[in-house]
């Protein structure tokens, strides 16, 4: 190569650990150390950039989940533990993202059941977990306390902190040593502001993942791409408050018109294509974690990333 692929950058993306193996005090079969990048992904440099991790998203109440996924997965969607296990053993995901969608039910109050769900998923899969807690500020405090406690020692990734509500999630991360997803609405300055707020409350930089928010390809993703690119440029130029790994969840691609209106026999294919291409764009923009909802997207993405340039993440595997 005739030119400098570091572009004179001096910054490094901070490293964040996801999951804890038995040797590290948890029960996962693997833990990941993501981040550490010093240039853009998929460039042919001395220090190869790893492929993003693929997290499969499941939920504990499928009522509001995509019907395409529901139809594809069948009865599994009613059993989050079994679903999570399938994500590991059949779909081949690197992580499981459990969305506690039951908290979205009107007047939800059964926090004890949530705790049980988290525990059952933790014992059903050996993969590191992302837990998406409440969507209702009023119950945040109880929900995140329950999640934090249930996953003590497992170094969960807890979501999702926003500028207007981050205290409970930060408290859970601090109390039980988890990491947090910090989401801002496609805006580099708000992303930075939230990271500063989290830092002020005591969450260490190596416990934060930025979620710049992802629209579907052709439906606003170009904004996400540009926000991600700029976040990463800032990180590489030395802005420590933006130097965190990024996480992208192109869940919106399952609800766009093209997918909704696709003929029944082409619907899955259409959903996978949109989810995959949005994900690839997000990976190219620098995302270290990609969260997908269609089971078939996992395999397609793995292959695509391998084609882009395959080097595995530094991972600590359990010796079995």
């Amino acid at each position, binding site marked *: 190569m005739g030119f400098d692929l570091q572009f004179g950058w001096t910054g490094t993306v901070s490293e964040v650990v996801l999951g804890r193996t038995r040797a590290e005090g948890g029960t996962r079969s693997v833990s990941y150390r993501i981040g550490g990048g010093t240039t853009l992904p998929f460039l042919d440099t001395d220090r190869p950039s790893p492929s993003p991790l693929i997290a499969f998203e499941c939920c504990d109440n499928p009522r509001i989940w995509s019907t395409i996924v529901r139809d594809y997965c069948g009865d599994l969607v009613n059993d989050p533990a079994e679903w999570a296990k399938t994500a590991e053993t059949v779909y081949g995901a690197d992580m499981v993202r459990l969305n506690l969608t039951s908290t979205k039910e009107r007047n939800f109050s059964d926090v004890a059941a949530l705790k049980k769900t988290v525990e059952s998923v933790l014992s059903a899969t050996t993969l590191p977990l992302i837990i998406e807690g409440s969507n209702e500020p009023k119950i945040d405090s109880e929900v995140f306390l329950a999640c934090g406690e249930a996953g003590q020692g497992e170094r969960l990734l807890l979501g999702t902190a926003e500028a207007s509500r981050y205290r409970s999630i930060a408290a859970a991360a601090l109390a039980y040593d988890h990491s947090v997803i910090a989401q801002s609405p496609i805006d*580099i*300055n708000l992303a930075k502001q939230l990271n500063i707020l989290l830092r002020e409350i005591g969450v260490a930089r190596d416990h934060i993942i930025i979620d710049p928010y992802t629209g579907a390809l052709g439906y606003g993703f170009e904004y996400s791409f540009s926000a991600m690119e700029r976040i990463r440029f800032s990180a590489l130029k030395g802005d420590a408050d933006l130097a965190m790994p990024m996480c992208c969840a192109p869940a919106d691609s399952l609800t766009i018109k093209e997918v909704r209106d696709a003929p029944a026999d082409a619907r899955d294919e259409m959903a996978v294509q949109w989810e995959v291409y949005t994900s690839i764009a997000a990976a190219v923009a620098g995302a270290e974690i990609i969260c997908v909802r269609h089971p078939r997207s996992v395999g397609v993405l793995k292959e695509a990333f391998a084609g882009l340039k395959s080097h595995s993440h530094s991972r600590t595997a359990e010796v079995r």
Partner: protein
Amino acid sequence: MTDVLFAKKAGEELLKTQIAGISSTFSYDETAYHLPVSYSLTGIAVSDRATAADVFARMNNNPLIAAECLLAEKTATGGREPAPYTGFIGDTVIRKLGYSLVDGSILGLALIVGKPESAGGAAAICRELQEKYMLTFLAGGVIPSLSEAGVKLGLEYRLVPLGSTPLYGIHFVDIIARVAMMFGGVTPGDAHRLLAYAAERAKAIVIVFPGLSDEEIAFVDGMRVLGFPILSLTGYEGGEWIPATPDTVVRTGMEKKGIRVNVTAIPIPMACSPAFEGKSIRKEEMYVEFGGGRSPAFELLRMKNVGEITDGQVTVIGPEIGSMTEGTANPLGIIIEVAGKTMKKDYEPVLERRIHNFVNYGEGSWHVAQRDIIWIRISKEAVAKGVKIEHIGKLLASKFRMDFPQLLDAVAVTLITDKDKVLVAKAAAEKVYEERDARIKGMRDADVNTYYSCTLCQTFAPNHVCVITPERPALCGAISWLDGKIAYEISPSGANQPVEKGSLINAQNGEFEGVNRFVKKASHGEIERCSLYSVMEYPMTCCGCFECIALMLPEVNGIMVVNREFKGVTPSGMSFSTLAGTIGGGAQTPGFAGISKNYILSDRFLQGEGGIERLVWLPAQVKDELKPRLLPLLAQRGLPDLFDKIADETNATTIEELTVFLEKVGHPALTMKPLV
């Protein structure tokens, strides 16, 4: 009366001998932090006389260390006290407590020691602490006294009975020490960080009833190093304890420590959310209206001293909505009084502007304009649901507290509907408006060393940086220098940051070394230089929100300005929207600048190009709008006839017509130094 200083001295001596008298070994279960206070301060695990004496000496005979060691020994030899006393609380519970503190469901911690004279008084204090989301720990005679009064105790009631004597209050300190180590990143042995954490982050207060012994006084006074206010009710004098009465002790303590209660719900029979902000109330939907030129109405926000107003108080002077005739315009005065330790008089107008948003948040209330030209409507639907004038006051009081929790401790609202009283209060308000205008008007760029940035628009214009000075408002016209300053003070990590002017590079163009440095960083290295007053050389970047565009017309050696509302083609051959598309997006485009309307009136307008004499064309609408202010200003600058020499679309729509017009009137720009 016990003299605190005297008792403390005697108590410290006593504690010293007691430490020397420790004979057995001791430790706590259920903790990884040994004796937490000693451990956090020194990093040493205390377990016997030798280690206790060592730590005590290292910490200069600190009574907190003495209390912790003595109590640990006593617990080890005598066993734990029976229920309801909790004694030492294990790490698992502390982790949950810490969680609630970080997450804000507990606002702060209080310790009550001593024996109250009356059980009822102590109960009232505890109730107030419960209502204010404080977690209260109790030690000594206060506990039986509360039980007697029938007050329920326990963690679930946020009243924790630690032990039978005030010395058990040390567990309050060991909890804070552990929270600091678990949540605050304090490493054991880093006494400096622990003290800083306790003083700045731990929201703790101590309330002292009478009857403390000398050692107990020494222990309680020892907590002052942690920055906790010690509030004494009766029976003590001297020292640095704060005297208080049962009625005020909680409020005083919370204020001293800056603990604020957050308002979460607004108690009115109408939904309230930014979602309703854009909804207008048409004439046929309206029940009553105020102002809008149909009846006298005004709004005013004033600062008061803390303690002068009662938080949440809403007063209506005059008839309520029930006695107003449907469909009529009625007089209204809105007076908002606010108080807060960090509130400043300068913030008044900025906060006052929020009345507009807040009233519009109401599902059935609508607000336009400001000051004494406001226009408010309340919908029929809202009135049918029971909304009264009073509720508008409650909405305002709550929203101000919710949105400015760091700034405001108390908000009181007075609504006047009595016509004569509105007229009197309005005249007084108008005086205040005048004073305010005079204050900002007099401000010059040269008077301040700090300007403010605005990067709100980086969402869509990634490298755009507005630099706002007293004489150059943001190009959108929405943020003045004062607004930027206040926004920064209220939200220090927000989009408005201070910009140190630094040394002067070019006085005429308004280029400063500090501004350049800031702009380079905030534009992510894209923009190297920025001149504040020039359109031609290194002009400020443009996002897309500019009220007007200023651009050079080389053919006539002048600069034209076009506003967003102007729909036609300008003499430049382009319409506003074409121009906006060319220069927006955060780029720096020499020859073009985005500006606010009011900037045209500024002495710094086009300074780099020789001043307002360069202005050759301006749409008639803007000309008319600015005329009353522009004419005297031009006269002042010795250019009384310039106004009529500035062309508009009525006399020049093309560059050729403009050239003819300018030559005919003898516009000064034609003979000025060439622009290019």
